[in-house]
C-alpha cells in the first residue's frame, strides 16, 4: 500500500480567501490525483498532478481556481482560490502504485468548510 498524509485535516475559511492543501506520500509515485467529494456526493476528479509540468484538469475545473503544484515524486499541493460556500467539500489526494497490478490509494482527505 501507500501511506499518504494530508495537511490540514480540516479547516474553516472565509469567503474570498484561499487555502493550500498539502499531500505527502511515503515513497515516490508516478501518478498523483486530486479529487473532490461534495457533501453527500461521490468523488469527482479535479486534476492529475504532473511532476515538473502543469497539471491536467478535468472538465469543469480550471487552473485559476484550483492551482496545483508537484515539485517532486512524493509531494503535491492543491490550492482552492477565492473560495465560496460551494467549495465546501472534502478534498482527497490519491496516488497510483503499480506492483503486480494497479492500485490507487487515497489520503485521509481535507474537510473544508467555507463560511
Amino acid at each position, binding site marked *: 500500500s501507500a501511506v499518504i498524509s494530508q495537511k490540514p485535516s480540516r479547516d474553516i475559511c472565509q469567503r474570498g480567501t484561499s487555502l493550500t492543501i498539502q499531500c505527502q506520500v511515503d515513497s515516490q509515485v508516478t*501518478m498523483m490525483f486530486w479529487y473532490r467529494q461534495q457533501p453527500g456526493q*461521490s468523488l469527482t476528479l479535479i486534476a492529475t498532478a504532473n511532476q515538473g509540468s502543469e497539471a491536467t484538469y478535468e472538465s469543469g475545473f480550471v487552473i485559476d481556481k484550483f492551482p496545483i503544484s508537484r515539485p517532486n515524486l512524493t509531494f503535491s499541493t492543491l490550492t482552492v482560490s477565492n473560495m465560496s460556500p460551494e467549495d465546501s467539500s472534502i478534498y482527497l489526494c490519491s496516488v497510483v502504485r503499480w506492483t503486480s497490478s494497479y492500485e*490507487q490509494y487515497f489520503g485521509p482527505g481535507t474537510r473544508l468548510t467555507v463560511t
Partner: protein
Amino acid sequence: AQSVTQPDIHITVSEGASLELRCNYSYGATPYLFWYVQSPGQGLQLLLKYFSGDTLVQGIKGFEAEFKRSQSSFNLRKPSVHWSDAAEYFCAVGGQEYGNKLVFGAGTILRVKS
C-alpha cells in the same frame, strides 16, 4: 467515456445476513474495477480490485466481487454482515486507456440492523 452506476442508494440488512451491492459500468476497453469503503469521517479504503484473470476476486474483511463482462457488472458480496460493515461503498472503474483516472459510482450506504 467511462461511467459507473450503483443503483441502490441505501441498503439495510440484518447482522449476519448476506449482502450484495450492485455495480454496473460502461467502459470502452479492458476495465480495472475497484470497490472502496468509506466509514463516517474516514478516508477511502480499498476493499478489492479486478485487474485481469480470475473473475471472482477476494478482498479484505471477508468481501468478494465477481466480474461479469457480459453483464458489465462487478457486484460486491459478503456472506455474513457484521455491524462494523455499516459504511458507504463506492464502485470505481479505471484503466490505462483513460490515464488510470478513476470514475466513481454514486455510492451505496449500507445500514446494518441488529
